[in-house]
């Protein structure tokens, strides 16, 4: 049995996934830790936790691919790939039939056109602006003193969602304060916030040919309000895997499995400072 791992170091959370291939690919374990200030340590912790969860030794893992913004800090990783490529691969595996990925992470959102084999055909990302990202939601939750886990379910109770004019993650706070001063309910304000983010994301995704099936990936996919708002503006259902938050790490792990069969020198592998060897 071949075992490989993917570690996705995101801006807020670090995810690790261990997969095996024994005639078919299986996710053995997943782990999640806050990234914090020490990116390298976060990657190590997530990886160690994941191996422990899978009941294996880290030395059993034949190849590790790092992804996410902190991928070059994963000292034990064999190589690195962008999260764009990994999300396409992971979504195609966990949500078969995926042709479009909408990934909403902590500080960026992206739309990816995916081919039949999980390859990236095209992609667009937000640029130098956190509008339409998890950070927009987090700031909105903070200004209303509501936990991030609650904002999604609360937004679904909105009766008359307010209009959020700004797309700026900073200035949305003053919009919210203004609505609170007008006596609007938290539900209606959060409903408006979710719709504003969904519309922003749709305008980004429209730069691609949005084709079904559409899969949502990234940490924000856990937010039921965000999934609902996106489906409303898209006018169709999305595929949302229970492992949506881990999809980047899953994709990285799948690439790592492929590397066990291929020469490290050939093909796609262009790690800037890839480290070979054990962990």
């Amino acid at each position, binding site marked *: 049995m071949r075992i490989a791992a993917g570690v996705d170091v995101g801006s807020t959370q670090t995810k690790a996934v261990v997969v095996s291939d*024994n005639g078919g690919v299986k996710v053995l374990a997943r782990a999640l830790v806050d990234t914090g200030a020490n990116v390298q340590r976060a990657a190590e912790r997530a990886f160690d936790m994941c191996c422990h969860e899978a009941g294996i030794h880290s030395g059993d893992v034949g190849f590790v691919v790092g992804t996410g913004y902190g991928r070059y800090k994963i000292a034990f990783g064999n190589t690195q790939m962008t999260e764009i*490529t990994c999300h396409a691969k992971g979504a195609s595996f966990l949500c078969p039939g995926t042709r479009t990925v909408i990934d909403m992470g902590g500080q960026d959102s992206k739309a990816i056109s995916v081919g039949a084999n999980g390859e990236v055909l095209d992609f667009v990302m937000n640029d*130098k602006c956190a509008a339409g990202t998890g950070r927009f939601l987090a700031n909105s939750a903070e200004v209303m003193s509501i936990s991030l886990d609650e904002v999604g379910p609360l937004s679904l109770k909105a009766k008359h969602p307010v209009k959020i004019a700004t797309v700026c993650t900073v200035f949305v706070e003053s919009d919210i304060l203004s609505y609170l001063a007008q006596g609007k309910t938290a539900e209606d304000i959060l409903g408006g916030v979710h719709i504003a983010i969904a519309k922003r994301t749709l305008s980004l995704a429209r730069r691609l040919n949005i084709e079904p099936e559409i899969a949502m990936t990234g940490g924000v996919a856990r937010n039921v309000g965000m999934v609902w708002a996106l489906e409303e503006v898209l006018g169709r259902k999305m595929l949302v895997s229970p492992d949506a938050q881990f999809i980047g790490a899953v994709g990285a792990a799948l690439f790592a499995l492929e590397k066990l069969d291929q020469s490290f020198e050939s093909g796609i592998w262009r790690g800037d400072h890839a480290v070979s060897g054990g962990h």
Partner: protein
Amino acid sequence: MTEKKEYRGSIHQWQKDLMLAWYEQLDQAADTGSPATVSMMISGNCVELLEGFGAVPLYPEVNALQLAIRHQSLDPILAAEDLGYATDNCAYVKADVGCIVKGITPTGGKLPTPTLILCNFVGCNTYLKWFEHLAKLQQAPLYVIDVPFMRANEPSRSDLEYVIKQLQETVKKLEQLTGSKFDYDRFRQAVACSSRTEELWSRIKHLARRSPSPFDAYFDAITLMGPLYVYRARPEGVEFFEAALAELQAKADAHKGVYEQEHFRLVMEGPPPYPYFRTFRDMFAKWQACAVASTYSTVGGLWEFGFRHDPDNPFESVAMHMIAQNVTNRNFLQRYEQIRRYIEEWNADGLIIHFVKSCRLFSAGQGDMRDYFTKQLGVPTLYIESDLEDPRYFAEAQTKNRIDAFFEALEHSKTATPVREET
């Protein structure tokens, strides 16, 4: 393993020497008032006309980019913003204005007050205000050549005559300002030199159709563009480009490329982020990706499709160059066609569009351009944003991430296979 490749043939030093000699002439002009100097914009410049007076061109854009590439552009930009220029004004303008206000020059030498500020207004309407401000700041006379934009594929006869008349007015203006008579024969010789230089430059650009390309038609082409704009109309320019062609031809004949293995061939649209020029280049070098053609290298003139200055019709050919044969003054459909030809005839794998945040005029419409190439022609296209002069707009991690993802996608599209889940 990151592969850092930059062309370092003998012409590289020669190019440096030529540009330093140019700055020395400008330094001398600042001290003695001679030779006469004329500020112009690069796009569709009429440097041939200046030769009729033995005058030397001054290019505010070249000064600005020289500062940026030496990581010195932010101070003058901030100085201009202190004067009231907005953050989204053209950063070239701000760097140039800031330099004048603070007395900064790219070499540390002196720059003269121009004999004439000649606003050869081509495509970029920011230039009108830029040169108005320069005239006021430098207390120098201003003359504007109003060049009609390319509204169709060819300029009309009246467009040509309109520009020719203004060129002749420029001659009269320069005769008044320099006290010298325009030397028509020298002008014709200059046009003949330009024609020869353009032929050589065009042949160099066509060498990039070879695989591997012997030079990078974006990053290395920029090295050759300085002499092209300053010396095109002089024998020194012809001599330099003869050497450049010979050197690169020899490289091509020996099948030597920019990289040991040329992995990707690209077309580049838009100027580079000069404050991070090396960093940006390394992001492509890592993937052994070579630019085989670029629109930026046609800002000063578009010669690879056959246009040449004509010594038998010097004024008319200068006018034609200014109106129709530089990318800045051409309409978007012509720019699309130029890029499409590059992709097909130079056999490129993809297109990189670099959107310049502070250049709305050149960059507006690039979103549609991306759509056209990806959706209608199926050309893999990467769209990235930063700035050509202002270092504050360059986000290294984001830019690198997009570039890496683009090349991963290009590679992966060739090798991808489905993964089967265990049942």
